[in-house]
């Protein structure tokens, strides 16, 4: 009951795709272990052929996950500025081959993380972290913060709409003091409302027996599909690492 209260009864907008696809139904621990292992290995690859092989695996995972590609592309675009800055810089100083390799390596790491983010319900993800012995204080804060973010985002959207309805337009530069004052008051109001709301929610949680730690919201078991998923990613990561280190030529 406590956890349902924190998790919220309705569907989270961020998790809307997670329950629709097979990837979303995998155990969070399997997803975390497999994806993290693959990302850590992909991040240290320097041989061009291995970097492109890891990108091919990441792209395959993206397609096979059955998550909406448009949604993932939007998330990828948000990470693109930093990837491009690095790739263009390497291109200018080390030639086009190195520049493309930098883009491929960062993309091979970013894509599985986006699949993990879009294909896992937030509370499953945090429960998985707790089961991996991440301190309770951190996982509980993650769960509560995630819940509050939904509430405050809706609050912010309403405030911005009200602001627009009163004719406010965001200024054009840092010299627009009026615009900046309104923006800072909006941010201040978000904090004031969040503090008030936090206190009320705390009282509600306490009334339901909250003792500082949130337990996983549902039971889950490792299935054959979970094991296959982790094994395949760990095997691929292991092969890439072995080739990178030159253990096998």
């Amino acid at each position, binding site marked *: 009951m406590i956890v349902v209260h924190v998790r919220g009864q309705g569907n989270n907008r*961020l998790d809307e795709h997670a329950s629709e696809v097979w990837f979303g139904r995998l155990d969070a621990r399997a997803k975390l272990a497999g994806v993290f292992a693959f*990302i*850590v290995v*992909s*991040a240290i690859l320097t041989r061009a052929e291995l970097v492109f092989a890891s990108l091919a695996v990441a792209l395959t995972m993206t397609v096979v996950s059955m998550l909406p590609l448009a949604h993932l592309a939007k*998330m990828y675009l*948000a*990470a693109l500025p*930093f990837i491009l*800055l*690095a790739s263009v*810089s*390497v291109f200018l*100083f080390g030639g086009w081959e*190195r520049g493309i390799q*930098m883009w491929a*390596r*960062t*993309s091979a*790491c*970013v894509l599985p993380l*986006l699949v*993990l*983010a*879009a294909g896992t319900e*937030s509370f499953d*993800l945090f429960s998985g972290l707790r089961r991996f012995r991440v*301190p309770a*204080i951190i996982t509980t*804060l*993650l769960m*509560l*913060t*995630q819940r*509050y*973010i939904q*509430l*405050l*985002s809706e609050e*912010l959207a309403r405030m911005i709409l009200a602001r627009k309805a009163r004719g406010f337009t965001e*200024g054009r*530069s*840092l010299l627009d003091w009026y*615009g*900046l004052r309104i*923006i*800072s*008051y909006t*941010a*201040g109001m*978000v*904090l*004031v409302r*969040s*503090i008030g*709301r936090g*206190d009320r*929610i705390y009282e509600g949680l306490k009334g339901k027996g909250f*003792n*500082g730690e949130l337990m996983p919201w549902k039971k889950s078991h490792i299935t054959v599909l979970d094991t296959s998923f982790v094994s395949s990613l760990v095997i691929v990561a292991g092969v890439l690492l072995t080739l990178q280190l030159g253990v096998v030529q």
Partner: protein
Amino acid sequence: MHIPDGLMDPTVSAIGWIEFLVVLGAVLLLAGNRIKEKNLPRVAVLSAGIFVAQMINFPIGGGTTGHLIGGALFAIIAGPMVAIIGMTVVLLIQALMFGDGGITALGLNALNMAVIAPLTGWGVYTLLKTMTEKGGRRSSVAGGFVVGAAAWASVFVAAAACAAELAVSYAVSSGAYGIAATVSVPAMLGMYAVIGVGEGIITAGVLAYLWSVLPDAITSASPTRKVLPGLRELICGNTARAVVAIIVVFALALPLYFLYASAGKDGLEKTMENANVAEGEPPLASPFSYGQDYFSALFAGLLGFLSVALVALGIMKLVRMRGSRGTNP
């Protein structure tokens, strides 16, 4: 400022993770009990508030926008320890739920935005606040300036750390990772010097609003704190804590600095070599040396850093004691 996976040299990423885990472990040990149970939802709600405040863009000029980082704001509202934990939670949510920032790069991202930004912001705020207060009072303009300067410094120093990490990655990997210093340093510092101005104005505005509407929300402010006698004030005083916060920020740079350090001769040594002048035997030999490998140099550096910091704190204390004797007849 979120660094994605695959951009940083693995050694630099590993150092980032180790430093972040050491800092987080120490903070959980020191402040974990303070934020348990009753404060847990409040810290969570502040983290969510900062996360949502980061979604509000402000205009910079030329059609571009920036957004709040919030490290200084969080630290001034809730104190540096709580801010480190809260900002860590914000970054974890951004990485795991939005793919913003990476897993191998999380250590460095957290170091920049969850440790360096709040510590710098809080340290600068506390030091400037002490300097601008006269008889325990401060004008609202001076208050706004202090908050703005602290927020600007937090963004600028975090950006400088990020630029340095990118440059070190590039240098130690011979260009396989990171971004060359000639690109990363001017690009990051130039961009964030301007974004920092926006951060400063917004942070000052938010805190002015909070002071007028809900002053109880700013839990880090403790105007009634007693001045402790002697050594206890030196260790526990707010000024000393702020100095320690700034020192920690500099200490965090040491492992990367030693990774980047050149083994070549310095200017004087090179001149002596060119002039064929040999170094004579010193009358007194030091029992310490800088060491030959990375870890011994790092250990010597940390030891030297701590010694200099302690001596500086001692001198500060002596100067303050002499000053207070001079003013009280």
